Structure formats: C-alpha cells, structure tokens
C-alpha cells in the first residue's frame, strides 16, 4: 500500500549550488520556478538541505575554493541521486578553460549524469534535462532493489574449511568455478 518507489518519481526535490558561475544560468533556474515555465507542476520544490533532496543542479566552472564544498554536498546526499550539469561552463569549462584558478568541468570531481548545454541555457532545455534525469532516477531505483549475495561459498583446503576470503565486494559477481 505504501510504495515508496512509485512516489519517489512523482515528487523529486532539488538542491542548487553555484560553484563559481557568472549567475546567468542561476537566473534561468530561478525563472524555471516562476509562473511561465512552471517546474512545480512536476512536484519539484527548491530546498536548501542536502539530506532531503534527490536531484543536484550545479552551475559554473569549479574554482579551487569551491571544490571541497562541492564534494561534501555530494557525499551528504542519500542514494539514489542524479547530478545535472547546467550550462556550457559546467560541462566543459566554456571560455574559462585555460585560466589559472579553474578546473575544466565538473566531471573531474563528481560523476555527472546529464549535460545541459547553452550560454546561458534557456528554461526549456533545463526542463528537458530534468525530465531525462527523472528517467535515470527511476532506472537507478530499480537497480538498487535487485538482490545480491554477501558471502561466497566456503573453500576447502585439504579437508579444512577456509572462511577467510568469504566476503564479497558489493556488486561483484560470485565466481563459481
């Protein structure tokens, strides 16, 4: 009756972080939540709390001082989660590619799922990106629920049972040979 899998894709909550951008893409994200292009029809609320959100929207090329905060926010979000890089600066670094205080794009630090181009990207492309992110979130939820074993079969060495290497890493296949 209370099925969390079905309700998770009906109301994803958003966390937004500006990792050194020029504010153009942030104004367009704020305009997405305004009455003309309404993101709140999909059930989206802009919270400021990483423990309560599913989707991470990042803008801007990563500067050296913001990269620690970016990684900390990413690790504090619970699974399953989706990372969306908004704007050309977040995908590849745009005009800031050779400057001395800038890393080249976000995916040097955290794994990114959806790339949205444009300078500054328009609200229609951001809505396309969020819809695609919701499909990936549904796929990740299904994969998380698959059962997996925790222990291998115990091996025998001259009749003595050896249980030392019986723990499997998570996701590793059990090699039966």
């Amino acid at each position, binding site marked *: 009756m209370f099925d969390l899998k079905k309700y998770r894709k009906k109301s994803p909550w958003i966390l937004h972080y500006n990792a050194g951008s020029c504010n153009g893409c942030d104004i367009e994200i704020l305009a997405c939540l305004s*009455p*003309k*292009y*309404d993101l709140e*029809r999909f059930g989206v609320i802009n919270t400021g709390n990483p423990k309560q959100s599913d989707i991470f929207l990042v803008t801007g090329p990563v500067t050296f001082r913001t990269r620690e905060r970016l990684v900390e926010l990413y690790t504090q979000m619970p699974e399953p989660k989706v990372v969306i890089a908004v704007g*050309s600066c977040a*995908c*590849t*670094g*745009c*005009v800031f*590619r050779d400057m001395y205080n800038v890393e*080249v*794009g976000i*995916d040097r630090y955290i*794994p*990114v*799922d*959806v*790339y*949205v*181009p*444009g*300078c500054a990207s*328009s609200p*229609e*492309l951001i*809505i*396309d*990106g969020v*819809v*695609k992110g919701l499909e*990936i979130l549904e796929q990740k939820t299904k994969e998380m629920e698959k059962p997996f074993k925790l222990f291998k079969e115990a091996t025998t060495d001259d009749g003595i049972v050896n249980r030392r290497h019986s723990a499997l890493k998570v996701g590793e296949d059990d090699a039966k040979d």
Partner: protein
Amino acid sequence: MFTSFIKALANLFKKPQTIDYPVTPIAKDKEYRGLIEYGEESCIYCLKCEHACPPGAILFVPVENPSTNEKNKKGLAYNYNPYLCIYCGECVRACPKPEEALWQSNKKPDVAVKSDNVNSGWFELEKQHKEQL
C-alpha cells in the same frame, strides 16, 4: 475581504499564465541564435573560423582518409563541440562564404548523458591539433 473574493472569482475564468512545455512545443523566432551548421562542399579551408572563435569550439584535425574537396591540401576534417560553444556568431561573421559553408540555424542543441563522453573525448582532439602545429 469582499474585493479579494471578487478577484478570486475573476481569476477562475481567466487563461492560465503557464505554458505546459513538453506537451505543447514552443515555436522559436527565425532570428534565434542556435546551432552552427556546416556545408562541406563549399568550404575553402581558410581556417578563419578557427582563429575567430573565443573558447575554441571549432578544430580542424588531420585524418587518414580525408574528403575529396580539391581545396583540402593538408587532409583536415572539421570538428564542432556544441557543449563548448557560446553561440555568439563570430565564426559566421569571419567566414568569406557565410551562407553556403557556415551558417547559424535556430535549432536548439540536444541534452547529453554520461556515455556520450562530452568532455574527455575533446581532450584527445586538442592533443592531436597541437601536434600538427
């Protein structure tokens, strides 16, 4: 309190301000600055667009089996990255044949996923481009 009641009743019959985007598509203006498109037969390989682009989104890189255009003396091929482009139109203004070889349409770029290798694939091309200089 009475005026707010009348206003609420009038709002019930007005058209909503929202455009429900993925269901009804939005028509773009003819002069909107969108993707850059390339016509290979009319290009004369002068490389002016590569020098004029501020972030360096157009690169000409040598390949093994180039096209059969007679102006292509060094065996180069055209590469364009829509995730680095800033859509300013400087390359179209610098091209000597702006309608046949390089022009700016009003289409929107696509959204990419992780397996498209948008950032790491471009580092290889930059290394090849630097070696041939």
